[in-house]
C-alpha cells in the first residue's frame, strides 16, 4: 500500500448526484413525518409509502440495464439510503435493493427479478452464512417471501416461502423475522467460490448502504439536539453555549462528516475500482454505526428528561440507531478483516 500515492480527494457531488439527493430528500421529508413512522410500529413497514417509493424508481435504479434497471452507482444508492435514514423511513429499502442486485448478478429467476423491480415482492438477504438447519434473524424477512442465503455447503440459495415469516417484535421496530433454511422452496443460484464472492459482495453492500442510512440518522439526531440546545436555557444562558453540551455536539458533527465521507469513498471504490479497497465498506459501516450510537444517546441526553420520553422524536432515532446497525451482528469479524487487509498490505 502506497500511502503517498497521488489520488484525487474529491468528495463533491455532481449535478446528477445532487438531483438524486435532493429528489429523494424532498420525497422523504414530505412523505415521512414522524407520525407516519410511529403509525408503522411495531412492524416498521408502510405499504403505501413503499409503493410511492417504488414509483420514485428506488427499486429499479440500482439494477443493471439488462434487468430493466438504471445502472445507478453505489454512490447514488448511498445518497438515497442516507435520505431514508434521515427520516427513519419504515420501508425495507436497503435489504431489498441489495438482494435485488444480488439476484440480478446471480441470474435469479426472471419473474422474481421483475416482481422485485416493481416492488410487488420484497426480497431480502440473510447476513450470516447458514450452518445446517440453524435459524437466524433476517432483516425485513417479516415482509419478504424471498430470502437469499449463503452456506458453505449449499452455496448461494434463494429460499421462497408461501407467506413471509412471523414478525418478531424488536427494539428498532423493523420487519425482523426468524429465517428457517429448511422452510419453503430452495432454488440454487451459485456454488463454490462464486457463491462466496457474490455473498460477500452483497453483505458488504448491505453494510455500506446501512452505513449511509445511519449517517442520515446521525444527522437528524444532531439537528434535533442543536435546535433544542439553541433555545433551551439554564442558569440564564442557552445550554448550547455551554461546553458540556457544545463540545460533544461538535464531536458528533465531526463524526457525521467523517462517516459520510467514508461511506462515499467506499462506495466510489466499489463502483470504480472494485477489489482495490474491499475493506472500506466494512470500515464505513463500523464507523457510521459507532457515530450513530454516540449521536443517538447524546442527542437524546442533551434534551434531558424530555429526550427520554416516547413523545420526543429523538426516541425514534435512538431506538433505530442500534435497531438497524446491530442487524449485522458482532462488529468483531469486520474489524478483524480490516486489520487483515493492513497486514496484507504492509
Amino acid at each position: 500500500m502506497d500511502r503517498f500515492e497521488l489520488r484525487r480527494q474529491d468528495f463533491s457531488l455532481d449535478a446528477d448526484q445532487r438531483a438524486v439527493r435532493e429528489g429523494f430528500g424532498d420525497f422523504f421529508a414530505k412523505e415521512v413525518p414522524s407520525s407516519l413512522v410511529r403509525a408503522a410500529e411495531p412492524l416498521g413497514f408502510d405499504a403505501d409509502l413503499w409503493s410511492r417509493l417504488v414509483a420514485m424508481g428506488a427499486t429499479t435504479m440500482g439494477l443493471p440495464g439488462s434487468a430493466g434497471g438504471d445502472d445507478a452507482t453505489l454512490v447514488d444508492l448511498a445518497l438515497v439510503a442516507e435520505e431514508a435514514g434521515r427520516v427513519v423511513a419504515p420501508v425495507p429499502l436497503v435489504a431489498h435493493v441489495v438482494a435485488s442486485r444480488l439476484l440480478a448478478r446471480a441470474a435469479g429467476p426472471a419473474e422474481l427479478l421483475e416482481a422485485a423491480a416493481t416492488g410487488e415482492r420484497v426480497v431480502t438477504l440473510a447476513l450470516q452464512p447458514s450452518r445446517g438447519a440453524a435459524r437466524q434473524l433476517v432483516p425485513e424477512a417479516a415482509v419478504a417471501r424471498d430470502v437469499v442465503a449463503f452456506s458453505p455447503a449449499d452455496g448461494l440459495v434463494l429460499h421462497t416461502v408461501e407467506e413471509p415469516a412471523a414478525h418478531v417484535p424488536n427494539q428498532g421496530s423493523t420487519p425482523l423475522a426468524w429465517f428457517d433454511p429448511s422452510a419453503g422452496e430452495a432454488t440454487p443460484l451459485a456454488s463454490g467460490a462464486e457463491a462466496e464472492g457474490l455473498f460477500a459482495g452483497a453483505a458488504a453492500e448491505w453494510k455500506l448502504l446501512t452505513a449511509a442510512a445511519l449517517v442520515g440518522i446521525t444527522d437528524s439526531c444532531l439537528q434535533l439536539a442543536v435546535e433544542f440546545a439553541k433555545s433551551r436555557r439554564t442558569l440564564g444562558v442557552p445550554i448550547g453555549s455551554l461546553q458540556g453540551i457544545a463540545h460533544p455536539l461538535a464531536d458528533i458533527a465531526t463524526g457525521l462528516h467523517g462517516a459520510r465521507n467514508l461511506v462515499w469513498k467506499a462506495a466510489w471504490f466499489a463502483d470504480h475500482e472494485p477489489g482495490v479497497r474491499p475493506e472500506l465498506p466494512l470500515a464505513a459501516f463500523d464507523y457510521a454505526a459507532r457515530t450513530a450510537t454516540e449521536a443517538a444517546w447524546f442527542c437524546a441526553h442533551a434534551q434531558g428528561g424530555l429526550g427520554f420520553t416516547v413523545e420526543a422524536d429523538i426516541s425514534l432515532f435512538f431506538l433505530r440507531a442500534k435497531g438497524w446497525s446491530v442487524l449485522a451482528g458482532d462488529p468483531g469479524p469486520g474489524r478483524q478483516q480490516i486489520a487483515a487487509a493492513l497486514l496484507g498490505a504492509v
Partner: protein
Amino acid sequence: MDFSAVPLTDEQRQFAREVSAFLDEVVTEEVHEHERRTGDGFHEGVHLALGSRGWLFPSWPVAEGGAGLDRVSQRILELELTRRGVPGITISTTSLVWSAVELFGDPGLAAELKPGVAAGRVRFCLGYSDPEGGSDIAAVHLRAVQDGDDWVLNGAKLWTTGAHNCQYTFLITRTDPEAPKHKGLTMFLVPLDSSGVEIQAIRTYGDERTNAVYYSDVHVCDRYRLGGVNEGWAVLRGPLDEEHNRSPSDGLDDVARLGRRYLRQFESALDAAARWAKRTTRSDGTLVAEEPAFLERLGRLVIEAEAALVTPGLMGRNKASLAYIAGIAELMDLVGPEALLTRGADGAIEDGVIEFAHRWAQGTATYGGTTEVFKNMIAQHLLGLPRLALAGDKAYIREGT
C-alpha cells in the same frame, strides 16, 4: 466525486523523477540525524536547496523566485517531501506569514524581502501566545510603545517555534491598553537580531524544540509594522484563517488538511505494528497476526485512521489529533513492552517508531490552538450554537492584569 489516481503528463512524470533525484542528494541521513538531535523542524541546507529550485513557494512564477508549478506538480513535490520526512515547520510558518507581509506590509519592505524569502535566506516564525495567554491569542500583554520612528517592545512570547532559525518573527503586540481587548493590537515583523531579543529553548517530550522569546526594550522601526496601528487583529486573522480554513477546491488536497500531518505518524506506527505482528510469536507459539483479539483491536484503530483521513477542515484537524492520541495509546498496549523501547535500544521496533509516535501525538492536540478551541469554532460556526459570553472575551488587558 473522484478518488482516482491522478494521471501524469510526460512533463509531470519527468518532474517527479527530478524531485526524487534532487531529494536523494539533499535529504541525507545527516538531515534526519540533525532533526532527531535538534527537533528544530528545520534544516538550513535543505531549506536553501529547496529555495534554489523555487520549491519553497512552488506556485510562484520563476521570475519571482518560485518554480511556476502546476497544482499536480505541487502535490507531487509535497508528497515527496512528506514521504522523506523533510522537516517542514519553518517552511510552513514562513509561507503563512508571507501572505500577511504581502497584504499588509510596506510595499518597499515586501519587495526587499521577497527574493530572500523565496531563496530561503529570509524565514519567519509566529510570535503569537503570551506566556499566560495560550490559545487566547488576543490576551496580549507584550507592549509596543511608539518612540519617534521606532516602537519599543517589552514582554515575552512562548511557543515561537523556529525563532533561532528565523530572521523575523510575526509578532502581535499591545499598542493601546485603554482599548478593548481585540482593538488595541498591532502586528510587527520584528528582526530577531535586534538588540534586546533573547531566545530560550523549550523542549517537548515529542522531541521538538520550540522557544520562549523575551523582548527587553527592543527597538523596531515603524517600517516593520504590518497594517494599521491597533488594527493588528485583522492582520493576524488573515494567516490564522488561512491556517484553519485553507479548503481544498480542486480535489487534489487532503481534506483533513492540518490533520494529515498528524495522521502520517499514526499510520507509520500502525504499519510498524502490523509488520511486527507478522513476525512475532507469543510464548505459546501463536503468531500475533493470527490472534483474533489482536486483529480486532488493531482493526478498530485502522478504522479511526481511515475516518480521520476523510474528515474535512477544522473537524479533520480535531479528529486526526484525537483519534491519533487515543489510538496510539491503545497501540502501545497492543504491542506491549517492546513498544516502549527507544531508537537504538536492543529490540526496538523499527527504530522506535511506535514509541516516538506515542510521545509526539500529545502535542497535536495543542498545535495551532487546542482541540477545545477548535470544538468551540465547530460549535459556533458550523452548528450555529450560541457563543458563551465569558468575562475574558472582551476584558481589557492592562499592565498588571
